[in-house]
């Protein structure tokens, strides 16, 4: 009996899994060049905002009345605004605020959404109640929900973060619940149960790891949504306080000078677009990479 198997194994030569992993990483880089570029761009953006004090010539709120509305020049690469503040400095410091908000919202909503989604997907009783709640929250368009909540609770960084997280949690719950429902049907969950494993063990040790790819992908997308949403809210005057530099706030200031000082809107706008674009491209790459249907090919 072992004879028939010896040959079975011998003719299915499998390489060392570690090697497979390393080789796979090489393939990933070769197959997803855009994802790598986007990832590098993100790293640069983050690095540049962190190093803002070193890169900017001026403080973001330093008012120089004599330098009002100056176009891009050697002294002010991105030009100055209506109060003579350096746009480059404001864009860099604004990036800190915007990225921070995006990151925290992504972490909060994905974290909360994952826990709720897991429980909802696994226990049918919780499912009935929570999903009605989720549907109800989803019945409100995202920005309208956020604006009305912030409008009532008062603007501020904390409020924006909390409100945006509440807006995105139901979306994450849906996605996670979807994957849990699929995994719950796969045979290995039954196998584990038949083996004698307890339900919480199966949920956290077996089901959760399978939800990690959608979780990661969702996190990258919500990061980008949140940056867009924060910019939108601040632009509408219901976001973070005007004295804190953020990409949305800089753009709000630029509205009145649209025709006279184009640099006021172009540079912060490009910063948002580039950051969100990199996040989206990176997220797309991650999704393709983690998609089980594409894995075996």
């Amino acid at each position, binding site marked *: *009996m072992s004879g028939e198997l010896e040959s*079975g194994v011998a003719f*299915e030569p499998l390489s060392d899994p570690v090697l*497979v992993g390393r080789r796979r990483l090489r393939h990933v880089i070769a197959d997803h060049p855009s994802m790598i570029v986007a990832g590098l761009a993100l790293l640069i953006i983050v690095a540049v905002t962190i190093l803002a004090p070193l890169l900017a010539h001026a403080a973001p709120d330093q008012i120089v009345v004599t330098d009002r509305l100056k176009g891009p020049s050697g002294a002010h690469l991105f030009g100055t605004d209506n109060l003579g503040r350096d746009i480059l400095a404001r864009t860099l410091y604004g990036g800190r605020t915007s990225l921070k908000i995006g990151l925290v919202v992504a972490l909060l909503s994905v974290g909360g959404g994952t826990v709720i989604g897991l429980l909802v997907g696994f226990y049918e009783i919780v499912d009935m109640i929570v999903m009605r709640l989720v549907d109800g929250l989803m019945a409100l368009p995202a920005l309208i929900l956020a604006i009305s909540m912030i409008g009532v609770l008062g603007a501020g960084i904390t409020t924006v973060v909390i409100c945006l997280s509440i807006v995105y949690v139901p979306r994450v719950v849906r996605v996670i619940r979807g994957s849990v429902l699929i995994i719950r049907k796969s*045979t290995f969950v039954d196998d*584990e149960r*038949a*083996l004698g494993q307890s339900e919480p063990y199966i949920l956290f040790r077996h089901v959760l790891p399978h939800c990690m790819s959608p979780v990661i992908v969702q996190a990258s997308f919500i990061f980008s949504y949140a940056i867009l949403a924060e910019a939108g809210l601040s632009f509408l005057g219901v976001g973070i306080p005007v004295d804190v530099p953020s990409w949305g706030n800089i753009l709000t200031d630029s509205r009145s000078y649209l025709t006279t000082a184009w640099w006021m809107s172009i540079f912060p706008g490009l910063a948002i677009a580039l950051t969100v674009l990199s996040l989206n491209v990176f997220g797309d790459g991650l999704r393709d990479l983690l998609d089980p249907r594409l894995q075996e090919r």
Partner: protein
Amino acid sequence: MGETVGSETTESVLDVENLTVTFPRRRGDLTALTDVSFHVRPGEAVGLVGESGCGKSLTALSVAGLLPSDCRVDGSIRLRGTELTALSRTERRALGGKEIGMVFQDPLSALHPVLSIGDQLTEGPRRHLGLSRRAARDRARDMLDRVGIPRTRNLLDEYAHQLSGGMRQRVMLAMALICEPQLVIADEPTTALDVTLQAQILELLRTTTMDVGASLVLITHDLGVVSQACDRMVVMYAGHVVEAGRARTVITEPRHHYTAGLMGAVPLPGERRRRLQTIAGTVPQLDRMPTGCRFAPRCGSADEACRTEPRLEPTDEATLVKCWHPLPRGRAVAAVLAAEERPAEGVSDAVPSEGPLLSVRGLRREFTSGPALRRKVVAAVKGVDFDIQPGETFGLVGESGSGKSTVARMVLRLIGATDGQITFDGGDLTALRGRALRRKRRDFQMVSQDPYGALNPRMTIGHLMLEPFRLHELGPASTWRDQSVTMLEEVGLNASMLRRYPHQLSGGQRQRVAIARALAPKPKLIVADEAVSALDVSVQAQVLNMMKDLQDRFQVAYLFISHDLSVIEFMSHQIGVMRHGELVEVGSPTDIYQNAQHQYTQELLSAIPPVPWATR
């Protein structure tokens, strides 16, 4: 269209010569078919046989012109003398339906979900025969009538999801035949159907195809099906044709070791004491093709000569074979089937001393279904009684929807029973809850069907093997790894598996791991639900043999569930036949197979494809 061409080819409907299909890949081309040649004559049925991954379906797609556009096709495919590979994509496409009709394996996914049956059936005739809508609908009704759906059952305005599986396959067949093509290609047309339907549909396929004057190419993994429906057969292995000839001749006197091996791997009626003949290993993957004879690594008679590739050459009696050492004529079948005898089975012949290990009484399970306001209660299992003796196998056989899996899940306590008693190992199983139930679980384990889904794909085999030992605290922790390796060795694997992930294993290897895991806590009962149905014949035989060996060694009882009567007969000491949630007949294999009392059992038995190579 055949009249234009010279005399030599006019007698064939289809000539495939040296067909080679290559998929260009960034990391090297993959050649999926190499020099495939065969012919189909008018009115003839040709079977393409082989295990999955051998290139049967790809051959069919090449002939039908349905290959993805990025793959390279070399060689020649002639339909009534017309060279298909020379046609443009559009010209080629236009032949589909008109000259070549296709029947696919799973009719539910092959039929369009939101177009009506009538719409789908009339498309062909309206396009190829220029019929009006009305005329095309008439023709469609005609065709449905010919495939056994009476005109009174007007289903032109229905949709695929409203029909039963058998109905759908009839519609598929009608769709393939409606333009009266020269050639019908049927790709595993009965595999997705229940046993009793398989025979009917196969017969229908054969007769209606001949009826419209078409030739048939039947793709199947089942040698019984070929012997039942085909005049000639072509055996494929790893992208090669390895044997071709008259179906009867090849089946009674296979000349290639692979063909013979396939036949030996099928359990035969009345032969259940013998071990199954197996072919070692599995079909090689495309990127790991052995050089020389591709079957050599799995062949018992391979030698130095097999390092170079043999040619497909005629033997003395028109059978073509691609082998340096073809099996001799006349004694081929005998040689194959003269496998070692199994030692006499101690357990089954001895009268069981104690009481039954598992005793099921009046087991019942209801499900609610339907819209919220008109909820219906459907009984999936309607009061089932059976016993399993220690160390014995109880085989539960039935068609899909018969409730056999529900029984398994209730016995495993994965779902609750609506009513009834399960006594296991002297205790009431239905009374156990929570921790007590989980503790008891070490005595009854499960092996499920899906070799892909049954193991958590994100854990290494080592980790998966460790789980039962840790969970049930089987000996000191320091011994768990060694115990895992011992269990893997019991199922014919070794320690090199520990670091691999399930997707790096073949289907058969995965199923072995699942069995090793189930055996680890030394259970008294293993519930195996369709444990071998997803495996190829040769691998299935390996696993079945192994399960029998393990039963002898570990004195474990099986509740073995399958839709396949031959497999059930091979494995079981007692057999239960299920239909519509009821156990219609219980008895020993001899009772069931030679003296079936219930009409349904007889029906099931008569639906098994014939095994002409059986010795009795």
